[in-house]
């Protein structure tokens, strides 16, 4: 794939790149940077599009005003929603979940710029916003953060950072709502990673085999400060 072709694809649909485009971005720092800018732009667009919607009952017709949905059915509907929430909660708590490591790698596959080596730091404003949304502070000893994004992961918005190290770029995902009982190491699809309990949740550090994950994990753990949310 050529750069021009890549940029047309990334400029049209940066969230859903074909494998060939992802491979191109991983090998071309210029296009990886372009993709990073497009994803950052999309984040800004998404935030801007979410204007306040009418939320209060007073501001919108109640469901019971819809023809055919009388008061008795409205109560039945309310009861079914409560029952649904209860069942859903039980299933969520008691049911099996996909492998966290597998889900992390799936997520990375959609963001190929994660493994682009660069010396250029993320824009301070972008990084600050991502950290704030994630409810954390990051001290400078974490290293050079070249990428920061608030990503949807398992139904939550979490900070997705890339830290540049001597062993190459390393992805850091801060998972406030995922807490494994003990540290987890994994090696899948060319990625090596660790998920370490931290604060109220965990921190995942993922890189290639060459990356010095142990050191980086320790550095990141020491650099992350969890804020009350």
């Amino acid at each position, binding site marked *: 794939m050529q750069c*021009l072709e890549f*940029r*047309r*694809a990334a*400029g*049209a*649909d940066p969230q*859903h790149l074909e494998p060939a485009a992802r491979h191109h971005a991983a090998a071309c720092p210029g296009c990886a940077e*372009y993709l990073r*800018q*497009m994803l950052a*732009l*999309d984040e*800004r*667009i*998404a*935030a*801007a*599009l*979410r*204007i*306040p*919607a*009418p*939320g209060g009952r007073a501001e*919108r*017709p109640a*469901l019971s005003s*819809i*023809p*055919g*949905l009388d008061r008795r*059915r409205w109560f*039945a*509907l309310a009861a*079914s*929603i409560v029952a*649904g929430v209860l069942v859903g909660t039980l299933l969520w708590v008691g049911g099996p979940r996909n492998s966290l490591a597998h889900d992390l790698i799936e997520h990375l596959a959609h963001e190929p710029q994660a493994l682009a080596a660069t010396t250029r730091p993320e824009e301070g*404003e972008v990084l600050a916003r991502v950290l704030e949304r994630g409810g954390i502070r990051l001290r400078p000893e974490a290293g050079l953060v070249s990428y920061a994004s608030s990503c949807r992961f398992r139904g939550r918005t979490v900070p997705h950072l890339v830290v540049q190290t001597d062993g190459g770029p390393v992805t850091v995902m801060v998972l406030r709502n995922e807490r494994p009982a003990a540290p987890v190491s994994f090696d899948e699809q060319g990625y090596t990673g660790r998920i370490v309990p931290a604060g109220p949740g965990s921190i995942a550090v993922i890189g290639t085999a060459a990356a010095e994950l142990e050191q980086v994990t320790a550095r990141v753990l020491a650099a992350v400060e969890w804020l009350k949310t």
Partner: protein
Amino acid sequence: MNVPFAGKDGESAFARLCDELRPDLFRFAFWLARDRQVAEDVVQEALLRAWRSRESLADEAAAKPWLLTIIRREHARLYERKRHETVPVDELVGSESPELAAAESQQTLDVRRAIFALEDDYREPLVMQVLMGLSTREIAGQLGLTQAAVLTRLFRARQKLRRALGGAAAGEGE
């Protein structure tokens, strides 16, 4: 034939679905009409129409695109009725529309204004993609375009926004 929204259970499921989607349907209608009151009218009418026709929907997964189609049609109908009341976008920006006069941050406000000023051809597919999560194939179906045409519009929409927001857009094949 599968009729997911038939009967009492179907009514409940459909009402629940509409409640879940209503905020984003309103936002979609707003960015279509660029007018809060029109958007509220459009969503109200569209949901009533959808309610009456809910049993014609054979596939639950198709509910969102189906509702968007109804909203687009309702907007077109309402637009015809209210066309004489519309005002130029420049007059709306920062004055008529509260969405453009206040936001959580100046940055969000700037992006909102830039999207507001995009031509319909670029704004609508972008909103479908970024806000509603439609694929380019689904957008093509909604707009009656080829997928290639949709990709071109989406690419140009982002380039226009980048330019409007002060970022580089030249030399990228537009």
